[in-house]
């Protein structure tokens, strides 16, 4: 299937396409100069706050470097921790941002910041990145924003239609999708019975709910449900992802992205290494290295990597100082993220930290800058303003500035 056919197919109905075209014309969504190629995004969410100095900014030989070793990678001059040998061989496709700095040292607040681009203020909710991308991509018959392994962050003022489809447990989700599929006839009956009430109440909410019922009725026949059935993947390909939960989520993510999903977040915890940091980091890196590499390879082989951003991040870095329990504590002052695909440059390093990884010494950026880079890669103007539910307008990215060296 050629790229064009696939996209037309996934774009949904013709009506949806026209609505999309019109919307873009009205809002001037794509800035003239924009070269955004990204159409999809997968976030590997490292819950707990991954240690930057034991992953993508290693400091071997320094007094706080610990036993973590550094290895050469496919990107010349870029060294990463030896815990990630397979990713090291693919660093030509991935860039590291070593200079993200924030003020949020609490898990919840850090997670909120890295999911929405804004600090948390109770009662003033901001949309998650996945919801923004759902909003900015064409209408579809299937959920566009999927969260694997966690409930996911919400759409706030972008509206419930951009909420995450949360799959906390893959087999269970597949079961319930199939159960709904078996109820197709009953759902049709229910919609017929709804007719009288709907006619007497020409309200938008009812039209919206009917539309959801219709989508659900059809969902079992879409590639979305088939994508979640990992047993249909050839066993040789399945093996490359391994049998770990993270591996299965990566495989499901690839299949979901192929089926037309626009944004997938994969959850992996285990990074809150206050105790016994090195053994734990080694263990989690061992879990993510091969599946992440397989995901990169498959997206590239299928021609999807060029329009799919792969982003690895967590809520903060960790202290260079090693504590009394051989652990590292929360350290938002230096946080790193790794990203590539979707037309972004690979093999580069943005920013630099000092000898111990305690301070950013070059090209400091904030989370809004990271977000601005991402939306720009999607061809969306980071300065575009949205109306929030509280009357004012706000940019999607808290006035971030795109990181130029990743976009050129």
């Amino acid at each position, binding site marked *: 299937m050629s790229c064009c056919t696939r996209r037309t197919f996934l774009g949904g109905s013709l009506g949806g396409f026209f609505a999309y075209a019109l919307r873009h014309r009205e809002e001037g969504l794509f800035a003239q100069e924009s070269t955004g190629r990204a159409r999809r995004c997968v976030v590997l969410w490292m819950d707990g706050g991954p240690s930057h100095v034991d992953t993508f900014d290693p400091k071997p030989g320094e007094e706080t470097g610990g036993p973590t070793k550094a290895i050469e990678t496919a990107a010349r001059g870029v060294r990463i921790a030896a815990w990630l040998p397979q990713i090291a061989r693919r660093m030509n496709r991935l860039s590291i941002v070593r200079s993200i700095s924030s003020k949020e040292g609490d898990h919840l607040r850090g997670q909120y910041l890295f999911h929405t681009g804004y600090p948390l203020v109770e009662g003033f909710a901001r949309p998650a990145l996945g919801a923004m991308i759902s909003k900015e991509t064409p209408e579809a018959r299937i959920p566009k924003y999927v969260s694997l392994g966690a409930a996911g962050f919400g759409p706030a003022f972008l509206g419930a239609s951009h909420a995450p489809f*949360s799959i906390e447990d893959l087999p269970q989700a597949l079961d319930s999708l199939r159960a709904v599929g078996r109820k197709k006839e009953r759902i049709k009956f229910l919609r017929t019975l709804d007719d009288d009430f709907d006619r007497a109440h020409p309200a938008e909410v009812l039209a919206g709910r009917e539309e959801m019922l219709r989508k659900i009725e059809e969902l079992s026949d879409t590639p979305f449900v088939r994508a979640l059935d990992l047993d249909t993947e050839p066993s040789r390909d399945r093996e490359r992802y391994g049998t770990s939960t993270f591996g299965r989520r990566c495989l499901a993510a690839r299949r979901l992205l192929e089926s037309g999903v626009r944004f997938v977040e994969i959850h992996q915890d285990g990074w809150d290494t206050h105790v016994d940091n090195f053994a734990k980091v080694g263990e989690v890196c061992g879990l993510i290295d091969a599946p992440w590499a397989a995901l990169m390879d498959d997206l590239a082989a299928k021609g999807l990597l060029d329009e799919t951003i792969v982003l690895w991040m967590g809520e903060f870095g960790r202290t260079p100082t090693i504590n009394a329990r051989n652990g590292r504590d929360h350290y938002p002052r230096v946080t790193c993220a790794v990203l590539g695909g979707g037309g972004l440059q690979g093999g580069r390093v943005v920013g630099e930290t000092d000898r111990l990884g305690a301070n950013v010494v070059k090209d400091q950026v904030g989370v809004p800058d990271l977000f601005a880079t991402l939306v720009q890669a999607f061809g969306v103007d980071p300065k575009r303003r949205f109306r929030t539910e509280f009357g004012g307008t706000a940019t999607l990215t808290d006035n971030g500035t795109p990181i130029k060296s990743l976009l050129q």
Partner: protein
Amino acid sequence: MISRTSLVLALALCGGAAEPGIDGLLARKWEETGVRPAPLCDDAEFLRRASLDLIGRVPRIDELKAFLAKPDRAAKIDELLASPDFPRFWSETWTAMLNGYASAFNSQRDGLRFWLEKKFRDNAPFDKIAAELVAASGISSVEGSVNFILHNSVDPAIKISRTFLGIRLDCARCHDHPFDRWTQKDYEEMARFFVPLQKEDLPAGNSRVRDNPDRAGGPKPRFLTGAQPVTSRWREDLAYFITTSKPFSRTFANRLWYHFMGRGIVDPPDDFSLKNKPSVPALLDFLAEEAVRTNFDVRAMIRKICASDAYRRSSRHDARDPRLEALFAYRMLKPMTPEQLFDSLVAALDAGEFRKRRDSFIRTFVGRSFGEDFSNVWRYRETVQDVMTKLTLDPKTPDGSLDELYLRLLSRAPNARERDLCRGRAPAEIVFALANSNEFFFNH
């Protein structure tokens, strides 16, 4: 139709009361604007909406039959207000409004809810409730009210202004409000009331909230009216300024109206601004004055609203017309909250044995994705996944004829078309369809 409206107006104006009241004021507005209101709903519809609005569930079939045999609406409202489910349900919606469903900063949602439940049970005056919430100090597990400030402690001024004054200072946090009178200075001076606020983590997930007088050294805060605290207990002064201000009584009255009508006279109900004026100003003034006159007596206000014809307008209408909605010419649809949905399913299907699952049901349908703002509880928030999950629940099928199933779930008998469609269907299919229908899910 005009002549009927005039008649209503005439009756309202020359009746015993000097005040025209809710219906008289609406009739006057309709007269002026040439609006034709929807007819009144029938007794079964009345009972369904009153039960959902006051005790948070649809009527059981025995309650429905009893009411239709003796449809005394005022007595029914009294009965519902006296039910223990009234303070329970109202504390649930108010907790959602104040703290959402997630818990931030060790705030104990249940503690706040139990505290509110007691206040509603005792019919505490609402200005006292609000003042206690604004000024609360103490330990989260001991003093339930403190969990509101604790949850909203990042920027309490924003949430408090929005909830109790209907004023959105959100924009003014960063710059002067683009289309309202509030400036960044107003916000900063309001926010200063909370400078002494200090929270400490205590063991076992508890927190202590108090004002530290050492932090009250800087410039004095200033309320939006210009008032400044006279004591060093700034939050107490603020609570007093808020609850004696005009925006407070107007916001309270508007909130109650929103709860019952599904639309505020100012809508959304937390956005009073120069650009968002009341749709029926005289009605808002009247209700706000009533609130003050009754000393913020929640039950008295509810009785007043529920006794009006306005509360009994049918939800049926020919075409969507925002102008008619703003003038309350027909009843708005309100989606059920997860609490209402669960309790309604249990009541309709005699499924008391599922009661244990209530908390997990609510968590499922709120989810963390909606750990967001629930200031406007009737906003439609269902996601595809919510609907899908509901469709996978297999509701219990009670015994009974088709008529009985309809009475249980929709509080009415089926019409000819529905009888036709249901012919030959198993009861389980019919229950599935009705329990997931729009007519069931929306309060109409």
